[in-house]
């Protein structure tokens, strides 16, 4: 028995040695070693691990919403289950249409994940492209692009998103577009700053000497190095994005009823809040926990991926 655990310990030790090696013998070893070192820095921050677990939990909840939710999120019994306080049958109580709030919160995680993912997919590449292009070309293009970025940065985000949604019409898709349109400027700033330091690097001069086109240099050699700091910033922004989306939902401009979007649920709960506080309480708490998790995760990612900025 002791023999096997001894062997397992030694195998662990060997794996650790292999991963931490200063002289990796293959590309694969170097890549694994790098990932391992990043993970060790990340895991040292306990709150960051908690954040990661909550975000994974959110993804699993969204994936298995059908299995997890005890009742239908859309149909309730108006005669018997209207506005019931939290109990063992309905953990978070029921709303004005007799729907189980826990089930609605569970299904709402899908919408939150959808918003977060889509904004990241839309806004991060815009910021990355604008920033690297401005930083690498310099001169007039740089000045023009950064002026536009500054103008967007100077605006109040929520107000601008409100005006966009007003023009596009309410709905979750338009809310996502409005939020994405207002959230790319910080990413452009970061990508530009990174590009400015990178373009002077020797390896860029080497690539240029070989004869790579500017597009290729930006696309293959600069952008990949900007990705990690943009990812950090996007993760830290997630809380703000979730809260803005919920705010739009709360004002009736985001997801429309009967969609179980958390902000819209709070807006519905607001009508009964003085006598039936639980209708608004659960979705708000869900927003709070998920936002907090993204903040923890972002802090941890910053320490692990971007050691310069963590001071």
């Amino acid at each position: 028995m002791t023999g096997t655990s001894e062997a397992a310990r030694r195998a662990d030790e060997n794996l650790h040695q292999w991963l931490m090696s200063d002289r990796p013998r293959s590309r694969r070893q170097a890549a694994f070693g790098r990932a391992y070192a990043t993970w060790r820095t990340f895991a040292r921050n306990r709150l960051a691990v908690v954040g990661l677990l909550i975000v994974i939990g959110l993804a699993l909840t969204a994936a298995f919403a059908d299995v997890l939710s005890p009742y239908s999120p859309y149909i309730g019994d108006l005669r018997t289950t209207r506005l019931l306080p939290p109990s063992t049958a309905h953990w978070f109580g029921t709303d004005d249409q007799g729907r189980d709030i826990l089930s609605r919160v569970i299904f709402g995680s899908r919408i939150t994940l959808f918003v977060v993912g889509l904004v990241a997919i839309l806004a991060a590449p815009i910021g990355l492209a604008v920033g690297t292009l401005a930083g690498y070309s310099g001169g007039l293009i740089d000045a023009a692009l950064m002026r536009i970025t500054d103008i967007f940065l100077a605006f109040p985000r929520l107000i601008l998103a409100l005006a966009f949604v007003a023009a596009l019409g309410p709905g979750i898709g338009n809310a996502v577009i409005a939020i994405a349109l207002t959230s790319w400027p910080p990413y452009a700033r970061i990508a530009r700053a990174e590009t400015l330091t990178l373009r002077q690097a020797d390896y860029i001069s080497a690539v240029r000497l070989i004869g790579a086109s500017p597009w290729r240099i930006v696309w293959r050699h600069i952008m990949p190095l900007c990705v990690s700091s943009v990812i950090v910033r996007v993760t830290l922004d997630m809380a703000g994005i979730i809260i803005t989306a919920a705010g739009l939902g709360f004002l009736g401009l985001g997801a429309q009823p009967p969609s179980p979007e958390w902000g819209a649920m709070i807006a519905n709960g607001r009508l009964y809040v003085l006598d039936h506080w639980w209708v608004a309480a659960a979705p708000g708490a869900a927003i709070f926990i998920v936002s907090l998790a993204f903040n923890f995760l972002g802090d941890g990612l910053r320490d692990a991926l971007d050691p310069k900025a963590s001071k």
Partner: protein
Amino acid sequence: MDRGSARLLRSSQVVARFLVVILLTYLGLLAVTFFIGRVIPIDPVLAIVGDRAPEHVIARVREELGLNKPLWEQFYIYVSKVLHGDFGRSVLTSNPVMQDIRRTFPATFELATLGIIIGAGIGVPLGVWAAVRRGGIVDQVVRIMGLIGYSIPIFWLGLMALVVFYARLGWVSGPGRIDVVYEYTLAPVTGLLLLDSARAGEWQAFGNVLSHLILPASLLGYFSLAYISRMTRSFMLNELGQEYIVAARAKGLSETRIIWRHALRNAMVPLVTVIALSYAGLLEGSVLTETVFAWPGLGLYLTNSLQNADMNAVLGATIIVGSIFVGLNLLSDLLYQMLDPRTRAMVRR
């Protein structure tokens, strides 16, 4: 060229660049709102005449509205109208939008100002304390308050605060600015009800206004406090590590004096810009807060207009809030340059 005129040239260049930035930013704001007004799917002509109007009526109205002109000319007309304070009429209230904004703005101003007083008044000392006793309990509290401030939806916290402090405990008055009993007893001089009631000596009304105001203002104050205290902490830590602090200690100055007179005074320079920025943020935060507390300010006006697709009012309110936001942003930049003695010396000479 001698040195004096070279300096003058440089400082006038700074001012000129600043003016160009202001101009471009405002032009950008107007371009975005103009664009938003144009992409709205409802045709403004059809909204006026209805979709069964004959062809020549549609053409005439289109001409009257100036929609047949080229886009740049429309933009020019739009800009000159906005600069004259003409945002058109609100469909919802049938008043000129500017008049509505003037009526609702004092309520928002009163709320946000009390909010920033609470936020800065508590946030700055708290941040100083956290920096001085680094790693202590206050430091932890500041950290946690900051995290909560970044993660909690303001409208939800407002609702829950209403449930606890209004419905359960009965410590404060509920939604609205003032009880109906007092509503028409006050002559609207400044529009700021606290000032108006104090001027008239109506202390009962003053108490009532305060009990309505205190909860939403504290809420906004909390969000600026969370930000201001964190920033104060990091600025103070930066100052306390400087050599002049060591020199002051070596001279034998008291620790209180070193912290409040020496370190904080230098930390104030970036802090002023942070406070100006969070004041701008409160104007934005008031949109959601006003909805929760039925506060008859600019934010509520904006959201009501949004829900009724009243585009003139939406764009007017957006431009006003955006202008104030941009203005405060730029002002904080300018303040930073003026308050820092190093740049001030350069500009003055």
